[in-house]
C-alpha cells in the first residue's frame, strides 16, 4: 500500500525501551486491537502471541512472556500485517524485529539450521557458508562479460548487487546469467562488486540479528564508498528491501531498483528484443519484499505480459494479498523447526494456489522462491507439469 511504500526510514538506535519514543513506536499506542495483523498472518494460527497480542502485551508491560515464547520465531517477515494494518503500524520492519532481537538476546538456544546460517553470514558473508572466493565463479558461465567495478576504474551507471543465492546456488545462478544477458542486450553500463560483496543482511535485520545486519551494512557501505556508481540494481528482493529502507540510515544515497523495476523502466527498449514466443500460461507470485513492502505489483506483470506467447493468470491471493513463500525473516532456515512444530510449509500452500490456476510456469522475482517452490512442487501432487522461473529468466529466454 502506498503508506508502506512511502514510509520513511526509521531510527536505528531504537531498542524495546526507547521504542515508544520513536514515531513508529508511538503509532503502536494507537493500535485498536482489531486483529487484522493476526488474521492475515500466514502463521497466525500457530502463534501463542499473535502480532496483535504482542502489541498489547508490550503496552501492558508483559513483554517478557512474549520474549520467552517462540511465537515470533514463526514470523516470516512477509509484511502482510503491516500492509493491512488500519493504523499503519510498522510491525514487520520495525516493531517485531525489535521484539525478536530481545528474544535472541534472552534465549540461548536457536534452531540449529538457523543459527548456522547466521554464523555463516557473519563469518563468510553468505548464509550457506560458502567460500567468499567462489562468489564470482558463476560469471565464467555467464556468456557475456560481467565487469568487476574494481577493474572498471570509473563511474558506472549500474552497480549490480548480485547477492548470495544468485551467486552460489546453481538455480540462483540461472537468474544471474539471465540478468547479465539482459544488461548486455540493453547495453547497460554495469559492474559487480565481485568476491568482496557480502550479503546485504536483510534477514539479519528482519529476524533477530540487528548486530549482524549492522556489521554487514557497515561493511558493504565501506565497500560502496570505494567506487562511483549512479544506482544500485539487485535481483534479490530482500537485498532491495534492505537497501531501500535500512541502508539510507548508514548513508546510502544512490537510488535502488529491483531488476524487475529496472527492466520495466526499459521496457520500450526491451520489447523489440523479446522475439521468441514462449507460449505458456504464467502465474506470478508477488515477493513480499517487492510487493507489500514497497507496493511494486505491476512492473513484473508488465514484463511478463511483454513476452510474446505468455498468458498471465492470477492466483487467488495476489498483490497485497499474496501468500508468502515462507522464506523471509529467517524462514529460509527454519523449515525443519516449523516441521517439528507441526506447521505446514507456506511454499506448499502457495504452490497449491499456483497449481489451481492451471499455469505452466510459476514466475517469481526473488531468489529465495526458486528453491522454495521447486521443493514444494516435489511434494505437492499435481497432474500438469509446472516449473518455477524467475521473471528475468523468462525475459532472457525470450530474447533467445
Amino acid at each position: 500500500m502506498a503508506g508502506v511504500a512511502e514510509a520513511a526510514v526509521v531510527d536505528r538506535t531504537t531498542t524495546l525501551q526507547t521504542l515508544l519514543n520513536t514515531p513508529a513506536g508511538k503509532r503502536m499506542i494507537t493500535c485498536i486491537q482489531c486483529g487484522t495483523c493476526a488474521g492475515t498472518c500466514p502463521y497466525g494460527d500457530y502463534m501463542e502471541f499473535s502480532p496483535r497480542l504482542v502489541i498489547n502485551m508490550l503496552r501492558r508491560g508483559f513483554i517478557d512472556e512474549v520474549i520467552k515464547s517462540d511465537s515470533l520465531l514463526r514470523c516470516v517477515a512477509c509484511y502482510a500485517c503491516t500492509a493491512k494494518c488500519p493504523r499503519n503500524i510498522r510491525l514487520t520492519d520495525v516493531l517485531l524485529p525489535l521484539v525478536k532481537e530481545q528474544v535472541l538476546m534472552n534465549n540461548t538456544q536457536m534452531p540449529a539450521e538457523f543459527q548456522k546460517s547466521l554464523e555463516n553470514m557473519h563469518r563468510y558473508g553468505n548464509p550457506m557458508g560458502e567460500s567468499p572466493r567462489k562468489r564470482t565463479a558463476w560469471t565464467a558461465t555467464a556468456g557475456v562479460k560481467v565487469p568487476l567495478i574494481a577493474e572498471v576504474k570509473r563511474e558506472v551507471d549500474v552497480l549490480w548487487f548480485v547477492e548470495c543465492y544468485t551467486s552460489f546456488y546453481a538455480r540462483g545462478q540461472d537468474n544471474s546469467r539471465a540478468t547479465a544477458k539482459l544488461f548486455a542486450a540493453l547495453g547497460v553500463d554495469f559492474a559487480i562488486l565481485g568476491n568482496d560483496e557480502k550479503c546485504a543482511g536483510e534477514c539479519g535485520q528482519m529476524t533477530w540479528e540487528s548486530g549482524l545486519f549492522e556489521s554487514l551494512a557497515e561493511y558493504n557501505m565501506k565497500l560502496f564508498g570505494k567506487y562511483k556508481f549512479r544506482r544500485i540494481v539487485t535481483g534479490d528482493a530482500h537485498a532491495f528491501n534492505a537497501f531501500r529502507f535500512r541502508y539510507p540510515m548508514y548513508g546510502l544515497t544512490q537510488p535502488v531498483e529491483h531488476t524487475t523495476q529496472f527492466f520495466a523502466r526499459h521496457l520500450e527498449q526491451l520489447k523489440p528484443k523479446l522475439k521468441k514466443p514462449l507460449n505458456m500460461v504464467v502465474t506470478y507470485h508477488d515477493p513480499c519484499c517487492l510487493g507489500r513492502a514497497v507496493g511494486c505489483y505491476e512492473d513484473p506483470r508488465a514484463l511478463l505480459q511483454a513476452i510474446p506467447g505468455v498468458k498471465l493468470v492470477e492466483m487467488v491471493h495476489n498483490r497485497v494479498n499474496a501468500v508468502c513463500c515462507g522464506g523471509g525473516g529467517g524462514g529460509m532456515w527454519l523449515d525443519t523447526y516449523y516441521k517439528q512444530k507441526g506447521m505446514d510449509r507456506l511454499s506448499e500452500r502457495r504452490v497449491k494456489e499456483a497449481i489451481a490456476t492451471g499455469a505452466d510456469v510459476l514466475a517469481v522475482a526473488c531468489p529465495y522462491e526458486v528453491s522454495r517452490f521447486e521443493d514444494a512442487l516435489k511434494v505437492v501432487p499435481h497432474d500438469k507439469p509446472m516449473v518455477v522461473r524467475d521473471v528475468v529468466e523468462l525475459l532472457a529466454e525470450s530474447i533467445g
Partner: protein
Amino acid sequence: MNIMETRKNEPVRIGFYVCHCGVNIAHMVDVEAVAKYVATLPNVVVSRNYKYMCSDPGQEMIQKDIREQRLNRVVVAACSPLLHEHTFRGATEAGGLNPFYFQMVNIREHNSWVHTDRLEATRKAMALARAAIQRVPHHKPLEVKKVPINPDVLIVGGGIAGIHAAITMANAGKKVYLVEKEPSIGGHMAMFDKTFPTLDCAMCVLSPKMATVGSHPNITLWTYSEVVKVDGYVGNFKVTVRRKPRYIIEDLCTGCQECVANCVYKEPKFPDAFNLGLGKRKPVYMPFAQAIPSIAIIDPEVCLNFKRGKNPDGSYTVSDKCKKLCVVACGDRKAIDFSQKAEDKEITVGTIIMATGFKTFDPRRTPYYGYGVYPNVYTALELERVINASGPTEGHLVMRNGKEPKRVAIVHCVGSRDENTNRWCSRVCCLYSLKLAHLILEHTDAEVYNFYIDMRTPGKSMEEFYNRVAEEGMHLVRGRVADVYPDPNDTASGRLIVQAEDTLTNRILKIPVDMVVLSVGLEPRPEAEDLRRLFNLSCSSEGWFLERHPKLAPVSTFTDGIFLAGCCQGPKDIPDSVAQAGAAAAEAFSLIDKGYVEQEPNTAFVLAEECSGCKSCIPLCPYTAISFNEETKKAFINEALCKGCGTCVAACPSGSIVQNLFEDQEIFSEIDGVLAPLPQ
C-alpha cells in the same frame, strides 16, 4: 453614536479586559501579569482580568466601566473574534459607545491552546494586547449596513435531509427550490429496506414525505438537475440550475408508464442504477415505483432513438432507427420529446441549504475482501436492495446464483477507521449491520456472523436495539476480517472462507460462508469539491463540508446564508439527518424572518481630495464596485457593491483609499504594537 460625537475632542480612554476563560487561558497565560503590563501603556485607564468575560457579569463590568470611568475605547483579550467579537461589540454598545470602538485580542485559539511555554505565551499575550491598545485609538464610529433578504430558499439535494428541510420551509410559507441530481428524490433512504432501531420500513415513512414535496404549492422541485453557477451573497444569491433533458416533458407525463410497457425492448435489459445493477430496466423507465416526480425518463445511451455516443457538446443526435412504440403508446399526451435539450434556469434566493449527502465506500479499494471478484461478496447497500420487497429479487434473499445463503458473514468497518482508506468511523455501520443481520435472520434460517472491531451503538434506543438483535442468536465475533477467499476444498459452489482473528479468544477463525456482506463506510461525494468551490464553502481534510463551529454553529458554514443538513457535513443516521435538516431550516428561517442582514462595515472609500485618478484600483475590484468619475477625474467606490476585501487599498499608490475597520494607520499601529519591546 451621538455620545461619541460629543466626546470627539476628549483624550482616548481605554478599558482593557483579559479573560481567564476558566483555565483555558489562565493556565498558559499569566493574565494578571498581562493586565498589569497593559495598565502601564498609554491611554489605558482601566486594566482588569476576569474569569469569564463573555458572561453577563463580565459584560456588565465593561458597561459599568464605560459609564463610570468615562471609557471611550474597549479592548478584550479572550478567544477568537470569530467567536465573541459580536458579544463584546454588543457590550460596548450597551455601555453607550459605538460598537466599533472595540478591538478584540485572540489569546486562546492563537495562544494558550497552541503553546506550551507559559512565560512565552504570556509575553505573546502582552504583545498582542499592546497591538490592540495602539490600534484602538484610531478606530472610528461606524454603522452596520442592513441589506434586505430575499425570502426564497434553495435546497441542494433531495435525500431525507433535503426533503425534510424543504417541507419545513415550505410549510412556513417560504418558496423553496429543491434541486436533485437524480431523476427522483429520495436519496439513499429510498433504497433501504427497514431502518434501525425501530425497524420500520424506510419507504413507508419516506414516501409520504416525498409525495408532499411533489405536491407542495411552495416547493419547486427540479430533479435531474444540477446547480452550475452561484453568484451574490447572503440574502441575495443568484443561482443557475441546469435541468438535464429526460426526454419526457414533465408537465405532460402522467406517470402511467405506457411508454415503458410498449418499449421495443420487450424485456428489461440494462443495469438498473437504483438497484445498483442487481436488477434490469428498459431504455425508458421509472427510476423506482414510488419515484417523485412520478415521471418516466429515457436513457439516451441505450435508447434506439438516439445514435450512440455523445456529440461534442454533450447532446445526443436523434436517430430514426426505432419504431418509436413509446411515442405511439403515449398518444395524445405527447409527453415524449426526443429533441429535449438541457435548460438553464436562473433563480434568486436569500438562503441556501446544502443537503448533498454521501457516497458509500468502494470496497474495491480493500481488495482483500474480494468485492468485484467473487460474486457472493455484496455491499451492505446491495443487500438492502436484495432484501427489499420492491428490489430485484422481490425480497427473496437469494444470491446472484439464485441460491439462498446458509451462512452469511457481515464484515464491519470496511474502508472505515483505516489509515489506508478512510480514517473516520462512519457511525451508522454497526447499527445497519445489526439491522441487516436481523433481516437476514427474518428472511432465512442462515447462520449470521458479525465481524466487528468495536460495537458502536450510541444514541437513543440504539443499545436496546443491539441487545434485542444480539438475543436473536447471531454470532458476534470481535475481530476485523483480514481475508476473504474461495474455499479451496469447495471450488464449485462459490463458497468463501472469511478469515479473522477472534481477538477475545486469541484464535484465528476461518469460517466458510455462502455470502459476504461488506459494511461499507460513508464518504464525501466526489463532486463535493466542485460544490465547495461553487458555493464558496470549506471542506474538512476528509472532504466533508465544514460547519462554522462543531458545537455552537453546527449547521452554519463560513459563508453567511448557506447552511448544512445531513451527511454532506459528516456521517449520520436518519434521525440525526432529519434533526439537522430542521436545524438548518430554522437557521435559514431566522435569517429570512429578520428581513435583513447586517453587513460588517468594512467597505472601502476614496478620499477624493487625495486621489490622483490613476485608475490602478479599477481593474483590481472583482465586484466592479469602483468607477471613475470622468468629470472630477477621481475614482469612486460604490459602497453597496464593495465587499470589503481591501485589495484596492493595498494597491492605491497615493494612499487615498481607506478601508473601514482596516485603515492603514490601524494596521501600522498593530505592527508597531506586536513588535514593541516588552518588560523583561
